[in-house]
């Protein structure tokens, strides 16, 4: 194992040169778009509308996209080392208002393929295919127009994501960015007859708008200052600024340039659900589960990570942009993990864990470990998709039941073994159990925290979070999947409602709304005598879950390929614009100087933790922390016997040992369960003042603006009313008036000429 140290490679390491890509690379995004159109057309044809055709169209087109992506990878992988391959589908925006540099805006529908976008596209299209297959069964009870709508939006999402990731300029990235936001809105609000789903969709969209404003301003500022939005031209222009920061001449860098990363960061925080803007993601779980898995766990939410990794050179020009990212990431990770510990809705727990893991990725980016972040994105995509799809299978089978107090021993029911095993694999990955993929990727980030000067505290926060993650992950597993076989079906019956989940109580709160201190609900075990039978997942769901479980384990293998370049992901990231920052050896001082820490080469090279190489130590530390978390979960929530690792004592679904312990912690668990009142805080701090302000503006509008407008309408009418009496309709009066007027005119003329 080589000692890994962060380093900014010399500017020559940044592959700015590009070469022509194959024409069929453009098909990767456009096949999903075609599929979207076809799904829309299917909805117009009555005889085939209520078949599974839209699902198969989507699966096939996404599958072909994935195959093309593999072909691209096979054909161009070698070339990425020397620069990205670009395929321009057509000239899109070409505005010119002068001949000076910076007076031409060029943004083509061009697709930029290098290690970073290749990595992203591989899992976007690959996971997209699998999840579409899963959804073909999951959404089957909704066949008809809803089914077409679902798959059309699903395909459109993949198209937008491909534009975001493969765009060769910031404007195409922005198009994709808005596109995925739109699809996210459409799919969260899929059950549009359910008010909570509509509210969640609006919340997600509006929260994202706040971030998107930052991104839009960042893109504009980039063009304003650098005169180009195309990656190939942009990054070489940034290099002089990075060099002056390295040389310590911060005052040489225009303030404008330093503002760009801050604005881009806001966009990334919105899309990737980071601290000030994370509250939309847990609510987004109102959407159908495959959507939660694909968009809100595996792909779309990593767009922020992609953005920062892609524009890493822009982030390096500011000495405090990355530290802000680091703190936001680490605090988000901790906060979301604490909330996740206290929730009862298993899908919501997974949502908070997604927020938390995204925090890790941001912290990883900020520790100048794009590789660590990208690797965590990669492994997380697989295991989080697995976890979500398992939760979805449970929800599907138990009529929408997601409360972990109302389910127990699911894994041992007939037909649920694959789901249980896949869940176990996902949980092990998420909690960083030794030698799983999640273990390696999390370690890479954690170790970077300790070798990066000034980030030790964040490292400890992230380690604590790793322990909490292991706890809440296995809390779900021990409560729901092992133990006595008990369940209470949800209130959602597929046969007779038009929108499946319409009445499903999705809220993570206990019905009493008061959490641990209150009496947990008393479950009535539903056995064979009851009319409800859980229906175990069919072949599509099982196949997908098995494949995903295998893949999320196999993702660990990526760590061992190309070890000299820090894993397969490392080598991919290395061949991209994010390579400015990568893990390598030597040249440590460059990194240190970049952030004006007065470390010498020697000091940084020997940055240690407990006197050993941080990466080696971290394997042990994080493994121990993870296992401790799992053991605590087993002790508190595990069932009696081997299922609870012999230390659990739970005998019923609703109660576990934790219920006796929690009241001793005072109000803290209750606060955590209420998400630390962040939503209420926003309500109080932002929504209320906005509401009051809008009332005031409404009054101003109604009185002042409308008043003025009405005045201008009222005046002529009033004048007309008084003047209309002259119009009597009597002919002689008119004649008299005319004659009188004539006399007056004559008189005046006479006076003037006399």
């Amino acid at each position, binding site marked *: 194992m080589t000692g890994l140290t962060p380093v900014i490679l010399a500017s020559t390491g940044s592959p700015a040169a590009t070469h022509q890509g194959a024409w069929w690379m453009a098909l990767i995004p456009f096949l999903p778009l075609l599929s979207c159109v076809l799904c829309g057309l299917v909805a117009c044809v009555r005889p085939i509308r209520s078949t599974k055709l839209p699902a198969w169209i989507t699966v096939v087109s996404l599958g072909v996209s994935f195959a093309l992506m593999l072909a691209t990878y096979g054909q161009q992988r070698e070339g990425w080392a020397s620069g990205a391959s670009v395929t321009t589908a057509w000239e899109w925006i070409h505005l010119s208002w002068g001949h000076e540099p910076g007076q031409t805006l060029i943004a083509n529908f061009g697709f930029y393929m290098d290690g970073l976008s290749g990595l992203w596209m591989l899992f976007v299209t690959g996971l997209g295919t699998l999840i579409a297959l899963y959804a073909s069964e999951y959404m089957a009870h909704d066949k008809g127009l809803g089914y077409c709508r679902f798959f059309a939006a699903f395909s459109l999402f993949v198209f937008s994501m491909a534009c975001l990731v493969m765009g060769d300029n910031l404007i195409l990235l922005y198009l994709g960015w808005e596109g995925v936001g739109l699809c996210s809105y459409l799919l969260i609000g899929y059950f549009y007859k359910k008010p909570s789903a509509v509210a969640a969709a609006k919340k997600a969209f509006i929260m994202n708008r706040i971030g998107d404003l930052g991104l839009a301003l960042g893109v504009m500022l980039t063009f304003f200052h650098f005169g180009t939005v195309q990656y190939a031209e942009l990054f070489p222009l940034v290099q002089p600024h990075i060099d002056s920061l390295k040389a310590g001449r911060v005052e040489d860098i225009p303030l404008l340039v330093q503002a760009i990363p801050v604005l881009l960061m806001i966009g990334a925080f919105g899309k990737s659900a980071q601290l000030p803007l994370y509250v939309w993601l847990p609510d987004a779980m109102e959407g159908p589960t495959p959507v939660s898995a694909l968009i809100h766990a595996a792909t779309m939410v990593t767009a922020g990570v992609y953005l920062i990794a892609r524009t890493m050179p822009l982030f390096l020009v500011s000495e405090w942009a990355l530290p802000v990212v680091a703190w936001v990431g680490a605090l988000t990770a901790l906060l979301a993990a604490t909330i996740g510990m206290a929730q009862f809705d298993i899908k919501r727990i997974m949502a908070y864990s997604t927020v938390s893991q995204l925090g890790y990725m941001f912290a990883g980016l900020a520790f100048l470990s794009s590789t660590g972040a990208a690797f965590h994105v990669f492994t997380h995509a697989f295991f989080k998709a697995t976890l979500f799809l398992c939760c979805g299978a449970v929800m599907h089978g138990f009529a929408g039941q997601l409360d972990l107090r109302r389910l127990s021993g699911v894994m041992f029911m007939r037909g649920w073994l694959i789901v249980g095993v896949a869940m176990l694999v996902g949980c092990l990955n998420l909690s960083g159990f030794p030698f799983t993929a999640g273990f390696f990727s999390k370690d890479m980030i954690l170790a970077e925290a300790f070798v990066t000067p000034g980030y030790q505290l964040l490292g400890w926060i992230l380690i604590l979070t790793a322990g909490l993650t292991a706890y809440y992950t296995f809390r779900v597993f021990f409560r729901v999947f092992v133990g006595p076989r008990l369940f209470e079906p949800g209130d959602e019956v597929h046969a007779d409602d038009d929108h499946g989940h319409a009445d499903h109580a999705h809220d993570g709160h206990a019905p009493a709304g008061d959490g641990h201190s209150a009496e947990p609900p008393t479950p009535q075990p539903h056995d064979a005598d009851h009319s409800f039978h859980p229906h175990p997942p069919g072949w599509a769901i099982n196949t997908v879950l098995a494949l995903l479980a295998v893949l999320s384990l196999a993702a660990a293998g990526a760590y061992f390929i190309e070890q000299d370049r820090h894993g397969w992901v490392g080598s991919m990231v290395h061949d991209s614009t994010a390579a400015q920052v990568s893990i390598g050896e030597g040249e440590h001082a460059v990194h240190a100087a970049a952030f004006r820490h007065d470390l010498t080469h020697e000091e940084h090279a020997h940055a240690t933790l407990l006197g050993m190489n941080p990466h080696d130590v971290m394997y042990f530390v994080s493994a121990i922390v993870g296992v401790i978390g799992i053991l605590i979960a087993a002790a508190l929530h595990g069932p009696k016997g081997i299922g609870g690792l012999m230390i659990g004592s739970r005998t019923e679904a609703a109660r576990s040992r934790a219920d006796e312990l929690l009241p001793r912690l005072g109000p803290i668990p209750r606060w955590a369960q209420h998400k630390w009142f962040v939503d209420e805080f926003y309500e109080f701090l932002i929504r209320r003042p906005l509401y009051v302000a809008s009332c005031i503006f409404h009054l101003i509008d109604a009185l002042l603006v409308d008043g003025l407008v009405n005045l201008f309408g009222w005046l002529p009418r009033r004048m007309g009313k008084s*003047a*209309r*009496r*002259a*119009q*009597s*309709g*009597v*002919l*002689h009066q008119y*004649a*008299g008036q005319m*004659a009188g007027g004539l006399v007056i005119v004559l008189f005046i003329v006479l006076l003037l000429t006399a």
Partner: protein
Amino acid sequence: MSELVLLAQSGFPAPMGGLTLAHYLFVSAAMFVLGVIGFLTRRNLIIMFLCTEMMFQAAGLALIAFSRFWLNQTGQTFVIFVITIAAAEAALALALVVLLFRKRESLSADEWSEMSG
């Protein structure tokens, strides 16, 4: 030349003696004022129409007098047009009056006062 002009301006043919432009204009003005008074005081549509015709002719007379005074044919030409138009207009107006009469069995202008504001 100047004699001819003086001759013309003093009124031609000469035997008419002291008839000058002022006389013509006086007649014209008197006709016009009579027309106006008639128009304002009478209620009968046909009479009112005749009064407008009289005002017309008063204007025409003034035009001819000026034309003669300035030895310029334009005024007279213009009057010929006016007479033509007036003839057409009289035909039309009388037809309208007949129609109006048929509606109300009355020629009084006061019958038609709906178009009030």
